Each structure stands twice: as structure tokens, then as C-alpha cells.
């Protein structure tokens, strides 16, 4: 049985851990609110961009002469996966889920004889994936969300992707991120960036329908200034940055949600542990007192 002092020390240490986890929970909750607002206020742009691109893309008559960002390279030999993870840990299953999906996906692609390259955003993803896919990781981008994701960062990631695409380093680019569903649930979402898929935001049936409506109904009526293809040449890279930005914002909001839930759990567990230790401590103390009494009484009786 541990001594009273040992128990006291453990209780204090668990208490200070609990203080830390509950503080982290509070910080995550405050950041979550901001991140959620940011993700929501960025939605109008992404939606309108999608609508516009949908209607321009639908009106391109000659797909062959369209920019390769829309038409693709005609091959699917080399895949680039952009994996959005966090820089810091202590956020529950957030990174594990993304890493698991990535592992399965990469294995499936490799067994199909494809070549896979990984571009990782966030330190955690790098440390989780480098054991298995060290030689496939072309780079890791860190500190993208300090204190919050900015459009400049998204644009620089996007322009890097475009440059690689122009250099023929890959044929298909997919970004995978945790989509913010609610503070308690995040969903691993893959989204194809290149070539542009009409249902890029594919998960929302509404979005898809809206894009199609815009594409079918309005395409014939619009005038373009300058020509469709020139607009596309500007719109496509732009859309790429927007989609990356959107993924970053969603991922950031998800991270805060996941951390808040994880820290809430940890705080509760610490509370349970403290209760258990306290009962243990009281029992031990009682046992000591009883033993001492017995010793005194039996000593007195012996006289």
C-alpha cells in the first residue's frame, strides 16, 4: 500500500494536469467560435466562385483546347495527395483519422500500379506518415495556422501545386481534410482539385444541384469578357487557392472542435482519478489511525 505522502503527491500532480487540460479546453472553445465564424464567412466566396466556374466550364465548347487544369493531362499515373493535419497534438483522433485514410488510400493506389506523392500540411501528419511513406513525402508545410489560416498561405500552397502540375510532376491532385461537421464530429473528406471536377464540393447535394442549375440554365446567356478560355485560365488557379483555403479553414475549425472534445474528456478522466485517489487516501489515513489506536490500547492493556 502506498504511503500517505505518495498519495498526496499523486493527487496534486493529477490536479495540476486537470488544470492544464481544462485551460486547454477553454482556449480551444474560444478559438473554435472564431474558427467557425471564419469558416462560415468564407463560404459565400467559395460558393459564388463555384457557381461562376461551373457556368464558364459548362460553356466551353472545345474541351481539348481548354486549360489543362480543367481538362487534365489525360493520364492518371501520378497522384498527388495534399494531407491537411495539425502542427500540435492533443486533439484526439483528428490526425490519426486523416493518417489512417491516407495510408489506406496510398496502399490502394500503389497496388493499382500508380505513383503517389504526398504533400503534407502540419507537423503531426509528417511524423505519423514518414515511417511508412518517408520517400513519398515531397515536403511538409508547417505553421500554416498561426494564429489562424490566412489566404496568403493558401495561395502559396496552391501556386506551388500549380507549378508542380505545370512541370508535369503529377496528373491528379486530391486534397484530404477534416470537414467541420460539428464541434464533436469531424469527417475525413477527400476532394479532387485537379483536374477540376464539376462536383468539386461534392458532399453537399444542394451545392451540386446549385452548380448544375447555374451551369445548365445560365451558361448560354452569359457574355464573357474576355473569352471563356482566358477567364478560365485565371479562374481555375484562383479556384484552386479558394478550395485550399476552404480546406484549411474547415480543418482549423475541426482541429479546435476535436481538441475541445479531447480536453473535455481528459478533464473528466482526471476528475474521476482524483476522486478515486482521494478515497484511497482517506482509507489509508483511517487505517493508520486505527492501527495506532490498536497499538496504544494493546500497549495499555499489557501493563
Amino acid at each position: 500500500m502506498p504511503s500517505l505522502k505518495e498519495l498526496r503527491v499523486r493527487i496534486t500532480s493529477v490536479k495540476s494536469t486537470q488544470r492544464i487540460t481544462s485551460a486547454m479546453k477553454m482556449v480551444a472553445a474560444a478559438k473554435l467560435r472564431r474558427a467557425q465564424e471564419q469558416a462560415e464567412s468564407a463560404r459565400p466566396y467559395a460558393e459564388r466562385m463555384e457557381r461562376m466556374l461551373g457556368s464558364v466550364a459548362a460553356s466551353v465548347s472545345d474541351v481539348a483546347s481548354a486549360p489543362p487544369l480543367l481538362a487534365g493531362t489525360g493520364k492518371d499515373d501520378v497522384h498527388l495527395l495534399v494531407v491537411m493535419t495539425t502542427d500540435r497534438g492533443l486533439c484526439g483522433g483528428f490526425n490519426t483519422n486523416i493518417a489512417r485514410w491516407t495510408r489506406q488510400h496510398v496502399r490502394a493506389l500503389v497496388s493499382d500500379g500508380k505513383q503517389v506523392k504526398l504533400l503534407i500540411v502540419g507537423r503531426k501528419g509528417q511524423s505519423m506518415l514518414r515511417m511508412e511513406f518517408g520517400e513519398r513525402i515531397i515536403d511538409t508545410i508547417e505553421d500554416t495556422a498561426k494564429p489562424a489560416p490566412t489566404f496568403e498561405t493558401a495561395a502559396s500552397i496552391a501556386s506551388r501545386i500549380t507549378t508542380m502540375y505545370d512541370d508535369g510532376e503529377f496528373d491528379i491532385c486530391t486534397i484530404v481534410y477534416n470537414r467541420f461537421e460539428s464541434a464533436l464530429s469531424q469527417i475525413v473528406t477527400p476532394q479532387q482539385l485537379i483536374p477540376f471536377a464539376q462536383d468539386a464540393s461534392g458532399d453537399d447535394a444542394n451545392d451540386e444541384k446549385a452548380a448544375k442549375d447555374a451551369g445548365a440554365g445560365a451558361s448560354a446567356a452569359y457574355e464573357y469578357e474576355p473569352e471563356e478560355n482566358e477567364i478560365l485560365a485565371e479562374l481555375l488557379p484562383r479556384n484552386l487557392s479558394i478550395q485550399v483555403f476552404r480546406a484549411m479553414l474547415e480543418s482549423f475549425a475541426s482541429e479546435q472542435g476535436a481538441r475541445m472534445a479531447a480536453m473535455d474528456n481528459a478533464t473528466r478522466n482526471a476528475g474521476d482519478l482524483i476522486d478515486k485517489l482521494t478515497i484511497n487516501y482517506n482509507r489509508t489515513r483511517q487505517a493508520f489511525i486505527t492501527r495506532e489506536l490498536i497499538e496504544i490500547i494493546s500497549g495499555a492493556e499489557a501493563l
Partner: protein
Amino acid sequence: MADTAVQFELVSPEQLILSEDVEMVVVPGGEGDFGVLPGHSPMISTVRPGVIHVFTDGGVSSRIFVAGGFAEVTESRCTVLAEEALSVDEIDRAEVEIDLENAVEDLGGTDDPSEQKAAENRAVTARAKLAAIDAPVYQ
């Protein structure tokens, strides 16, 4: 309603900046400025760095600088997707001049085409900002 007003929306990647009914907007299109009145024929155009003039009650109600983007016009609506947008009154001349200097310096100091392009864009934006400050106000 559609006869007298254009629903004007200005959106930047970070947020919806402006959404209101106006008499007319003048947008710096990629191939020249164009004004949007109610009943404009539907079009999609690129936007170059410049100033958007918003007209209400017979005069300019706000002047907003945009650093390029896209505009979608329908009969009753004008939506501008801007890369960066701020009110002309908020532009700080000294800051922009420093930006311009840095951009020109970077432009000369690099051989990497993508960096050169980025620096050139920054220079163009900075020059457009300066022009926006000096430009006369429509009456």
C-alpha cells in the same frame, strides 16, 4: 424593384464585405471599366486592380479598392469576387510606397519566374492603389 436597383455584392475570400441595393456600380473590368445599371445583360468579366464606385442617391456613396478578381453580372445583380478589398479612404500612402519599393526591389533581385510574377503583381497592385488615392472622385 429590379427596375430601380442593382443588388450589389462584394465578396473577398475572408468574408462578405458588402451586400446592398444600389443605383449603379462602376467596376474596373479587365478590358475597361464598365457600369452596371438595372437590366444589364448577363456577363462574366475579369477585374483588374482598381476602384469600384458605388452610386446611390445620385452620387458616389463609396469607393472601394479591389486588387483584381472576377465580376458576375445578371439583370438584377452584380457580384464581385475580389482578391483583396478595402475602402479607398483606408489606403495608407506611405505604406503602399514602401510596398511598391520592396516589390520593385524583389523584382530585380530574383530569377525565379514564379517569384518574379508575384513581385510584379505586388508592384501592379501598389501602383493601382496609389492611382486610386490620386484619382478624382466622380460627381
